[in-house]
């Protein structure tokens, strides 16, 4: 028996050394059914809601949803909100399989994703919660590219440029012969889909010989470290790195426009100002905790956006968001 005890001690050693640190919650392990039952609760009183709201999708929108969840959590501490960052495409995959309640998206839902949702009879609604100015950046040393036309951007990024447009001179004869170093988001990203759609004319069509990264900070460092660097990402990453990077003005035919909160809000920063969405499922909205969360999210949308350093909606967009939510709840 001495040995038996020793053996048991060893098989559990890993557990024990850890359980010792996590002892606080050991008692709850015995009730596995508790969490699943909670979401089915038939509570109607707004006083104390509970349950779990599962949200996944765009990593660009996630901080906004998370900020909303944090402030909402101060009012409703027993509602648990888990926000994933699988990317817009990955989020819709789960959403249309019925695995999440709300999907964050940095581009509108695609037709094939709609078909997936329809196949599982998941109905949803599209809510625009913020805007973003997709910002094209160059390093501080770059003195020539202060304003680029959409055509020039296309010249740098279109699939035909692969292996051919290798220097700034190839984009425009007036630019110096500085090697072009391209940095951009990976192909799973909604930002990539949006940029390629607006600039190259087809979603997902891009040259492949650029340095892709899922982490926008890599793009910041890549562009900042190369004199001939060029990259793009959401506006917040530019705001945080203004000391290292310059934002390029974009000319879509009516003059050069600087990406900023104002130009994104009033829509003059075209074609790269984009709406950011959340997609709640109609079935989930029937649950009181989800309805309460969405009410809170929409009612406080602009203070949440400011808190999470997003570009808030203008008055017109805000009014539309509110009426969209009312319509969703009525359906």
């Amino acid at each position, binding site marked *: 028996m001495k*040995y*038996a005890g*020793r*053996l048991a001690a*060893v*098989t*559990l*050693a*890993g*557990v024990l*050394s*850890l*359980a010792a*640190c*996590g002892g606080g*919650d050991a008692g*709850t*392990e015995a*009730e*596995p*059914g*508790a*969490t*699943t039952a909670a979401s089915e609760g038939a509570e109607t009183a707004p006083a104390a809601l509970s349950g*779990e709201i*599962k*949200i*996944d999708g765009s*990593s660009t929108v*996630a*901080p906004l949803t*998370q*900020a909303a*969840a*944090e*402030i909402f*959590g101060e009012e409703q501490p027993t509602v*648990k*909100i*888990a*926000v*994933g*960052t*699988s990317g817009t495409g*990955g989020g819709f995959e*789960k959403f249309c*399989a019925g*695995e999440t309640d709300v999907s964050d998206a940095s581009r509108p839902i695609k037709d094939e994703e709609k078909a997936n949702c329809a196949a599982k009879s998941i109905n949803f609604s599209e809510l625009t919660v913020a805007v973003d100015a997709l910002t094209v950046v160059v390093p501080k040393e770059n003195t020539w590219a202060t304003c680029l036309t959409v055509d020039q951007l296309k010249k740098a990024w279109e699939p035909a440029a692969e292996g051919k447009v290798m220097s700034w001179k190839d984009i425009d004869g007036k630019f110096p012969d500085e090697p072009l170093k391209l940095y951009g988001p990976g192909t799973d990203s909604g930002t990539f889909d949006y940029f390629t759609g607006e600039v190259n004319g087809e979603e997902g069509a891009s040259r492949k010989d650029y340095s892709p990264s*899922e*982490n*926008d*900070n890599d793009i910041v460092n890549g562009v900042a470290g190369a004199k001939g660097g060029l990259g793009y990402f959401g506006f*917040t*990453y530019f*705001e*945080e*790195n203004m000391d290292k990077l310059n934002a390029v003005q974009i000319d879509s035919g009516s003059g050069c426009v600087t990406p900023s909160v104002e130009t994104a809000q009033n829509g003059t920063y075209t074609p790269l100002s984009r709406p950011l969405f959340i997609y709640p499922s109609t079935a989930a909205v029937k649950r009181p905790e989800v309805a309460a969360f969405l009410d809170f999210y929409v009612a406080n949308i602009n203070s949440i956006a400011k*808190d*999470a*350093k997003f570009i808030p909606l203008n008055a017109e967009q805000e009014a539309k968001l509110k009426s969209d939510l009312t319509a969703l709840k009525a359906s």
Partner: protein
Amino acid sequence: MAVLSTPKSAVQLASKGRPLKEHLFRIALLSSLAIALIFLGMLLIYTLEEGWGRLNPMLWENMPSIRRPETAGIQSGIFGTLWIISLTALMALPTGILAAIYLEEYADRGRWYNKIIELNISNLAAVPSIVYGILGLGIIARWLQFGFTVMTGAITISLLVLPIVIISAREAIRAVPPSIREGSLALGATQWQTIWRQVLPASIPGIATGSILALSRAIGEAAPFLMLGAATLVRFNPEGVWSSFTVLPLQIYNFISQSREEFHVLAAAAIVVLLAILLVMNSVAIWLRNRYQKRW
């Protein structure tokens, strides 16, 4: 472990005869060791320096926050990781050790099916962890409908560490000298009694070390959890095996990709916590090995 002491005496003997070659060889050995230690040291210094300001109780007292990165903590990640690793240990260690006992003590190695099992276990140990993530997503989360819960994560990680546990437990069992078994059997003990009273107690240090190292590897895994879709921003601790969760490596991954500098500092502090947990686990492994080691 006995192997470690022999080269020393061999070196002492040989250094009289062929000093130059021996010295060169020793320098080569020491510089190889130095490379590993220098990189470890650099990693430690870098993360400690970066995360020093945030290594305070807020780190484990507070939940992660996207709005207040300067006071945010990683409590949900610490608890998530502890839940996953504890459940993994409960599932993978008994299964792995029993499988190793079968393969070493009972299996007839001439049989084709045992050969196939052995070959596959070695193969599985080399499969990239993201593949286990795909398996977990497809079979455990979706087909078995376990969803994106602590249970799904723990089962997936158990499958990931199981081959490593089996292989290290087999090595430990094989290291028990056959004379011990033969002596026990000769004294009239049954095979079960021999295994339970002689072989297992003698192989405990090896089994424990291998198991804890396998779990240490699991603790640092982010890839399978990314695949499984564990949420990255979670402000509550798991309340049971059917709860949503996040783990430390995923939180670190998420903090690093945020735009604000405060998150990068927080990520460094979280890395220090992860390293500390690993260090504790490895120390336990060493302590167990020394405590129960037997020499023949």
